[in-house]
């Protein structure tokens, strides 16, 4: 139930984020979730897209360094304490979160979050046994 995230190395230079987005736009690839980790000199752009294989191909052809990483998308109740409930379960089971961010779209009463775990398989089994809904890549494409 893992989904694929693409991470891209970006120098802190004017227009680099635009370059990535415009390239994906031309290739008719849709960004579903996005996050940027930035430092003084560089940034790491992390995206979830509808067509990851095509996206990576296009990025590499255009000279970007891009990586695929397994992440886990989780449905969270869109109400106060919704995220806390999930983090509590992860905490109690010693599952380490490297980073996380939210999806662009959401359904009526649910928010979608993606998690990068150091051990995604164990994280998935913990989430499953606690009846937390995990979203698969098929669902992402159809969103």
């Amino acid at each position, binding site marked *: 139930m893992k989904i694929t*995230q693409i*991470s891209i*190395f*970006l*120098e802190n230079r004017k227009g*680099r984020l635009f370059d990535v987005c415009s390239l994906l736009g031309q290739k008719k690839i849709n960004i579903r979730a996005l996050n940027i*980790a930035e*430092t003084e*000199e*560089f940034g*790491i752009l*992390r995206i979830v897209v509808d067509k990851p294989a095509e996206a990576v191909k296009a990025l590499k052809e255009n*000279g*970007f*360094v891009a*990586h695929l*990483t397994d992440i886990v998308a989780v449905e969270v109740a869109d109400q106060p304490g919704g995220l806390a409930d999930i983090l509590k379960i992860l905490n109690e089971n010693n599952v380490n979160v*490297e*980073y996380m961010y939210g999806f662009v779209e959401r359904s009526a009463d649910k928010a979608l979050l993606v998690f*990068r775990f150091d051990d995604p398989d164990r994280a998935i089994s913990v989430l499953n046994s606690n009846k937390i809904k995990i979203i698969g890549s098929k669902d992402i494409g159809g969103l």
Partner: protein
Amino acid sequence: MIWNEKMETMDLNELKNIQSERLAGIVKYVYDNCPAYAKKLSKEGISTADIVTIDDLKKIPFTIKEDLRDNYPFGLFSQEVKQIKEIHVSSGTTGNPTVVGYTKDDLKLWSEVMARVIACAGGVPGDMIQIAYGYGLFTGGLGFHYGAQEMGLTVIPCSSGQTKRQLKIMTDFKPRILACTPSYSLYMAEEAREMGLNTKASSWKVGIFGAEPWSEAMRKEIEATWDLDATDVFGLSEIIGPGVAQECLQKKGLHIFSDVFYPEIIDPKTGQEAKPGQPGELVITTLTKQGIPLLRYKTRDIVSINYEKCACGRTSPRISKIQGRTDDMIIVRGINVFPSQIEHVLLGIEGTQPHYQLVVDRKTGELDELEVMVEVDEKIFSDEVKKLRALEEKIRDEIESVLGVLVKVKLVEPKTIQRSEGKAKRVVDKRTL
């Protein structure tokens, strides 16, 4: 004052006899005492009988930095290691550093030439000197120390760094002589202004600056800032360290102590003697050194030479300020850096590519900054910031341990480093000296 009136003002024809005698002596000495050198000379078909006068020097093959590396650590020494009283180390082009050793007599020679240096710059016995060159494996600090002791000066062995303390010592002890890199003198000026000190009122009246290239414009700035005479000192550890040549107060070239360090200027491409007055590579033969005598050592520094007698009374020929290098060595905060050393470090770190560029910059009143730009590729890229940070730190630490220089590592996108005609441009020097 002229420290060694006899040698420094000797008629050049008369000096030639001494140089000839010393050359014949040193060639025989290395033949008898250094198997690696004996092999090098006999390979060229040279026997000691061939070397009679200084003009025979041309028959001898050049010695290059790689000869020292290939014979690392002590293979070019002409004395047993137990006769060596002190060892100094400087950067090599790749891998092993350059190692030099001094016998008791070599330390005497070093003291003597450094006393000549200090006197040539305007120092006199009884002066107090603040030595802000690094002490340790680098020859700068100890070279000045020995010369100042020899001359009978009061020595403050500050070493480099701790600028506030340097300035307090200057203010309280009132040394008349300052020895450090030219850029450090300007860095101290900036700090002094921040501390509210009037730099023009400083006790320093004589400045002996070296270990890095600097210009006439920088001299004017230093002199105006500190109200002192700023003179240039030249040396390299392979020859002795500082103490090879020094400017007098005429400030028209550096007197090279040719009775002990015989200079030639060659066309680096052909190896032939350059036309008089024309710039070329400085080649030096140590005429009296015992620990590691070097014959026709190619310094890779580009200078011109002037044999006219100087208004100061010295006859010792004068070399110009360094006009360039025959290799891609850069000097950062007084430390020699070869791009090949950085390449070597990068190749040793798993996943890094040898695509890199060095950017050297010096902002006004600040010390040199060396930025190492490294291209990121699939192998080293990670979606986690901490992993990329750890990589930057690893590269920085490895470079620091090899070069002794703290650099800034910057990860850049692939293929962003300029490549000219397929060959990468390794060094961008933005400093205006």
